[in-house]
């Protein structure tokens, strides 16, 4: 997000634009020359932007025109163009803004078949696919991503809408997708390359902070499009991409691993997910745990207890200073795992889809270890009876304790101890909240 009130930064940005990137950007997208945020956005691109194809709708409207989403008079030539059959919709949209988890204006185009976008489909891949390079992911559109339901997971749009209503200029009519995305500004990442992973030659920026929401495109800019809005403001270590130890997320770079190419999702997500906001989860039938990323063990807290067994590319010497991005573990839209956990983390696949499963070490209820082992080594070390609980800090004396077991020798589910915001186990101070 450009800080337009800061003249120094603005001038610096202009210099960068003219002297460093102008030729490249122009070749990449001719609209860049003198264009504003909308013309540089995915929807407003004259090369690949929104273009509705529907009965009764002018076929010769240029790509990116307002009318592809907004109907100024809710009719053309006295008839409602497709999709027809309803009364005028809020914001002059051609379809109701939000109806349900799987029904609303965005899905009228963002699906892989039956889309009103010219061509009949819009492909959007998961974060694991694009940033993680896990191209085996079969999820290929937004509707599909938001269709995951228990025990799988997707960001609940009704819950989002409930939460944002009355905040930051949002109302009960707001589209929950607009909690994270400015439709007049967001860019493809990568743009116009549906089945491509991110790469360092073609980048776009997709999110805008909800706390800065405004109908003014200048005020509600992209988040992450300038250096101060990226994970490099922390001590960040980029995970590996799928099946490699040389290429880092999010763009496959072999050298950049400090987050200077990744949006500061810690700040972005914390607009909603923090230690003050109460957010109801329909799927969990409870409020989400409150936590401060600035003190979480994976955030700004000093994670150190498990560091002797940390896995590459994380370095033992830097334990206690790392700040992870939420996207290192979570998808933003939906996932075939619990809690929006990515299907690929730090180079390999993760399966956490029932929670009580046996996990990578064949012990009941330890399925979450599928995620933990992507970065934490030593969890399979055993004393003959135990794996991970063997390493519970000695002051807790986990062995044979009800604190670690259900009936018999069945482990308690990992998340009973490890969750965002949790600092103890059954009242006993403890260290490492994970989820």
């Amino acid at each position: 997000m450009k800080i337009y009130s800061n003249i120094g930064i603005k001038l610096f940005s202009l210099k960068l634009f003219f002297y460093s990137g102008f030729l490249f950007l122009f070749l990449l997208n001719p609209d860049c020359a003198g264009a504003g945020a909308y013309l540089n956005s995915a929807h407003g691109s004259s090369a690949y932007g929104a273009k509705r194809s529907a009965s009764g709708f002018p076929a010769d409207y240029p790509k990116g025109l307002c009318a592809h989403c907004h109907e100024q008079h809710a009719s053309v030539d006295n008839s409602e163009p497709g999709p027809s059959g309803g009364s005028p919709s809020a914001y002059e949209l051609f379809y109701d803004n939000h109806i349900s988890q799987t029904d609303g204006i965005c899905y009228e185009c963002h699906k892989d078949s039956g889309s009103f976008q010219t061509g009949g489909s819009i492909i959007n891949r998961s974060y694991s696919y694009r940033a993680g390079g896990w191209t085996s992911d079969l999820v290929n559109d937004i509707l599909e991503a938001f269709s995951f339901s228990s025990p799988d997971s997707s960001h609940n749009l009704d819950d989002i809408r409930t939460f944002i209503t009355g905040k930051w200029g949002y109302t009960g009519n707001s589209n929950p997708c607009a909690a994270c995305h400015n439709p007049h500004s967001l860019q493809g990442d990568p743009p116009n390359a549906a089945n491509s992973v991110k790469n360092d030659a073609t980048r776009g920026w997709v999110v805008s902070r909800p706390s800065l929401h405004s109908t003014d495109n200048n005020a509600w800019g992209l988040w992450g499009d300038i250096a101060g809005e990226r994970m490099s403001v922390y001590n960040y270590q980029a995970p590996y991409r799928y099946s490699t130890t040389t290429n880092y997320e999010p763009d496959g770079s072999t050298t950049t691993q400090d987050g200077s190419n990744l949006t500061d999702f810690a700040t972005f997500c914390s607009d909603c997910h923090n230690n003050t906001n109460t957010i109801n989860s329909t799927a969990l039938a409870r409020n989400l745990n409150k936590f401060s990323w600035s003190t979480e063990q994976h955030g700004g807290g000093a994670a150190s207890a498990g560091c002797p067994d940390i896995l590459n590319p994380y370095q033992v010497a830097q334990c206690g200073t790392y700040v992870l991005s939420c996207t290192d573990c979570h998808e933003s839209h939906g996932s075939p795992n619990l809690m929006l956990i990515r299907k690929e983390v730090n180079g390999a696949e993760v399966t956490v889809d029932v929670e009580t499963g046996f996990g990578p070490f064949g012990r009941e209820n330890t399925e979450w270890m599928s995620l933990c082992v992507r970065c934490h080594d030593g969890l399979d070390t055993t004393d003959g009876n135990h794996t991970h609980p063997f390493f519970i800090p000695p002051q807790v004396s986990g062995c044979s304790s009800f604190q670690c077991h259900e009936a018999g020798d069945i482990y308690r589910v990992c998340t009973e101890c490890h969750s965002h915001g949790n600092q103890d186990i059954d009242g006993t101070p403890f260290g490492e909240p994970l989820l």
Partner: protein
Amino acid sequence: MTGSLCTDCHTIHNSQGNQPATFDGSPVPYLALLRGSCEGCHTSTSASVWQSSIAGAPIVYNTLEPSYGNKGLAAGNFYYTGTTLDEKGHNIFLSNPDDGLGNTPPGGLDIGQQLNCSGTYGCHGHNGRQSGDTAIDDQLIAVMGGHHGLSSPMTGSIAEVSKSYRFLLGIKGVEDTDWEQDNVNTSHNEYQGSTAGSTDTISYFCAECHGNFHTWEGGITEVGTASPWLRHPTDILLPAAGEYAAYTNYSLLSPVARQSPDLVADTTLVNPGSDTIMCLSCHRAHASPYYKMLRWDYKNSTLSTALSGCNVCHTSKD
């Protein structure tokens, strides 16, 4: 219309040198001893003529594409509906009815007959659409007295055609001396706007036929009464906040209406929070070179051009 000769417009016997004295050479005389119909005085066969030598009438129809102003005067030019195109203007020519819409204006009801200039089936004069007015079918009788009356003060009275802006009964406004033929924002028409459901605004006038498109006519189910709007609103304030606050220099590409058009301190400026959005912020009244009578080329293949009119108000969506 002052200082003109009676014979500029009228003929006593429709005969001069034993030939018809009508402009179109018709031997059939017109009502009120006129020498022609509306078109007779307001048409030019030249591309560059914007004002008739006959009594100084504004030209609203050039038979060749107009080369002055922004392709015509403030309301545009019927040249663009004089051909086979139906979608670029109000189809007033019997030779070119609207094949798609027929006699039903978008957002309104069938008016029963092809649109013409004035009277029951037209825009100017007594069309019966203002409360208390009685429609007159004949186009010339419907505006009778209008050309001879004094427009000042402009009261919008429905009793006197001349007291309404451009003979649009009940409507107020301020006329530019050259009807914007010079196409500069230092001299232009001023249109009446209101946020109080007034019936003297230019947008209310449009809503007499296109009712579903007007904020205070269409109502809650058609347009809404506040954001989020269901259709693009008119007769609402240009907001003084956000991107709208940046529209401060009057643009002929997307002009605004005023709540007191005869009391504008500086006509080159726009006042967000006071001035209003109107139908003519986007459309020309008669016809334009562009799809749906828009003031700019909404279908231009260069997207920034296609959006140029939108961005006058939506300043951050460039």
